[in-house]
């Protein structure tokens, strides 16, 4: 499994290069053209990310997430989610690195093979950093009116969290 992960990137790059050479494509020229476009995309992504991360960092420092966690814990118990994971649940959509930190803490505190440790790991593995993704995609595409994207994406996150808790129970008793 780790060998697969190690080999994947070089394999994909080599396969694309070989295929391109075989089809007589100017592989290096195409690579440079595409990479140049990437720089333009990056400049469009940066401003919305500055806004988003400023707010996320402020929210984290203010202790608002901890306050919300205390309020939400009883709701989680009803949904079948271990209330200890509430911090992870709240951070996950806003910050990938913070979620990994909170998750790693849960995993080492309760043990990687405990119910809570496994639930935290599955939650991390089956969801994404929603607000970051929205900011990057819509920033790059120049979208101002996001319509129903955020509520729909949060539905997916919530379903992922509930499913993670239940999946761990089903798979590990």
């Amino acid at each position: 499994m780790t060998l697969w992960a190690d080999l994947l990137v070089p394999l994909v790059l080599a396969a694309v290069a070989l295929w391109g050479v075989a089809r007589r494509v100017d592989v290096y020229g195409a690579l440079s053209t595409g990479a140049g476009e990437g720089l333009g995309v990056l400049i469009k992504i940066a401003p919305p990310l500055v806004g988003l991360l400023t707010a996320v960092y402020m929210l984290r420092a203010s202790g608002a997430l901890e306050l919300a966690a205390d309020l939400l814990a009883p709701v989680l118990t009803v949904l079948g989610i271990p209330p200890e994971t509430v911090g992870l649940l709240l951070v996950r959509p806003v910050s990938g690195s913070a979620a990994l930190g909170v998750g790693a803490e849960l995993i080492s505190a309760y043990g990687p093979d405990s119910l809570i440790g496994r639930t935290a790991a599955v939650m991390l593995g089956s969801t994404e950093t929603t607000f970051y993704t929205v900011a990057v995609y819509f920033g790059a595409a120049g979208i101002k009116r996001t319509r129903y994207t955020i509520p729909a994406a949060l539905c997916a996150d919530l379903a992922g969290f509930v499913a993670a808790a239940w999946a761990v129970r089903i798979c590990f008793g």
Partner: protein
Amino acid sequence: MAMSVLWSVMVVAALVCGLWTGQSGAVAAAAMEGAAAAVELCLSMAGVLCLWMGVMEVMRRSGLADGLSRLLRPLLGRLYPAFARDDRVMEPLSANISANLLGLGNAATPLGVQAARQMARRTPGVASDALCMLVVCNTASIQLIPTTVASVRAAAGCAAPFDILPAVWLASACSVTAGILAAKLFARLWSAAEGQEGQP
């Protein structure tokens, strides 16, 4: 608008909670830190983003992207009916899905962004139903091998860090399905509401 409201709520909540918990100083420092972190994040992903957009261009010119999109058309055509015949959207979209399935998260974002930019050409500034679907599918992760989490578990002394795979797949599938259903449902509700307000 949604982002404007959300951003304002986040900032106001941070201010109020900071006062409540006596962390106002930390909140002020965090605002500066966050702004700096955004630029650092952009710089740190610059190389990877450019690389994969370059690879996409090679795939496009060599016909690999076309082959991939023909392979995935039955599925993607159903999810994105408005763009089923648009190669400029379908090719990066197919590459995005393939990268997600392979667990190449770094590659999936630039490819998906490319698809989003092509979709946005039809509806400048407004997220069409297809664009909403694209973002929702990418916020619900579809990676098959969550390597980062596995390494965290291994670091915590886990003997079989990949034993959570079936549970991850089950949860991912539920999350993606819920996202797609929610997007389809909201698309109907939204167009009905916008129709009443007389907006396009």
